[in-house]
């Protein structure tokens, strides 16, 4: 497993997290704990607060109330240390379209102050299969290629925690299968992963911990080994009112 900087016994610890945007309470007194090496899938329909939770864990959004600790570092006291320990993939590729894939990776690595930058680029490019298009502008790459490059960018600094916010959005079936293979074979057990999705099938196939976000809270959190697919789908429908 990738070694974290911090000494926390838990990869993620959230206590009483509340996030309010204007009149809307998106997260309501949310608690969450995740041990190192787990692959947590956070399910929930659109608007349930999955993205807000990922934003809070990735330091982009400041909680209105509550405590968030990631990789053993407190969000309010040491956000820079958290950023060093996480990689984020969202439905947006977070790439500069007019820079080549290689230039995007180099820029990102420099922002992380990586000393072994070229070596790391070579490694992640091999791992994500982006070698063949490193010289091409990001804007002309297909969605699938951009997603692979986005994943390469997210793990360039070798973070122990990976946060994925609906990474499957906009991908075709082939790219989805590739993403599933990469996340399953390459990352399971090696990094702690939190993946937000509304795709129940994909989530059940990848995660070893399953959670359902409903009403701004974690309404359900269970080990994958303890539940079967039909039971989970019925639970998901009950909490969210969405048939899966």
């Amino acid at each position, binding site marked *: 497993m990738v070694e974290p900087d911090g000494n926390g016994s838990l990869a993620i610890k959230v206590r009483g997290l509340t996030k309010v945007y204007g009149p809307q309470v998106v997260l309501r007194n949310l608690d969450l704990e995740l041990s190192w090496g787990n692959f947590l899938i956070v399910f929930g329909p659109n608007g349930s607060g999955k993205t807000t939770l990922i934003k809070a864990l*990735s330091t982009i*959004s400041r909680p209105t109330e509550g405590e968030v600790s990631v990789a053993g570092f407190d969000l309010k006291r040491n956000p820079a240390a958290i950023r060093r320990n996480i990689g*984020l993939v969202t439905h947006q590729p*977070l790439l*500069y379209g*007019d820079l080549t894939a290689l230039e995007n990776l180099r820029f990102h690595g420099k922002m992380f*102050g990586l000393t072994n930058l070229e070596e790391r680029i070579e490694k992640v490019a091999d791992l994500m299969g982006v070698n063949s298009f490193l010289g091409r502008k990001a804007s002309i790459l297909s969605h699938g290629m951009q997603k692979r490059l986005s994943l390469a960018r997210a793990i360039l600094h070798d973070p122990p925690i990976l946060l994925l916010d609906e990474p499957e959005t906009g991908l075709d079936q082939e790219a989805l299968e590739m993403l599933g293979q990469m996340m399953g074979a390459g990352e399971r057990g090696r990094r702690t992963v939190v993946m937000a999705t509304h795709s129940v099938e994909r989530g059940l196939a990848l995660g070893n911990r399953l959670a359902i976000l409903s009403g701004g809270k974690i309404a359900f959190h269970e080990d994958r080994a303890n539940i079967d697919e039909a039971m989970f789908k019925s639970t998901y429908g009950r909490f969210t009112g969405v048939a899966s």
Partner: protein
Amino acid sequence: MTKFWPTVAALMWKDILLELRTRDIVISVLAFALLSLVIFNFALGPSPQITPVVAPGVLWVAFTFAGVLGLTRTFVLEKDQGNLVGLLLTPTSREAIYVGKMLGSLFFMLLAEIIILPVFAVLFNISPFRPELLLVILLATIGFASMGTLFSAIAVNTRSREIMLPMLFLPVVVPIIIGAVMASGTALEGGSWSDMVKSIQLIAVFDVLALVFSAFAFEHVLQE
């Protein structure tokens, strides 16, 4: 924490590389500034009595509005492609991101001004290549870029960002524009350093305040 200056240099280099490929900022800034100078030139005519009086104002109208146009673009590219999130995810200090973006804006504004000045000289038959005037332009542009980068980051999160930036930013930089117009007028009339000292002091004090305040406020502007 990553090292400050290498990350500032990486940000600047990235902005320059993107500009070389897209030419978004420099072309629009130059087109606006040069058109303003031409229109003023036709409107005011070649009168030797009027030109020295209005030239400093004309020069700073061109610089100011062209500068605002350039500043509008500073964070648009980051925001529209989601890259602002990518930047905020790095352990780089927010001050380094601010300084990198500010120096990028300063570079493009100075580049545009270097091209605008000879055109201004030809159209208004005035020689602007005096050390006093060049210092005033440099100092005022530093203050403009310092405060403008902060306001550009504020405006990019608003719905009508092209309107919001000048509305929020121009009232704040009025002291620097007044100081720059006064000092430029003195310099173009062949005045001495002692005649300009108050205006230059005003601009320099504004620069320091703008840099310190903006670097401090930048993190709060970016945080959700």
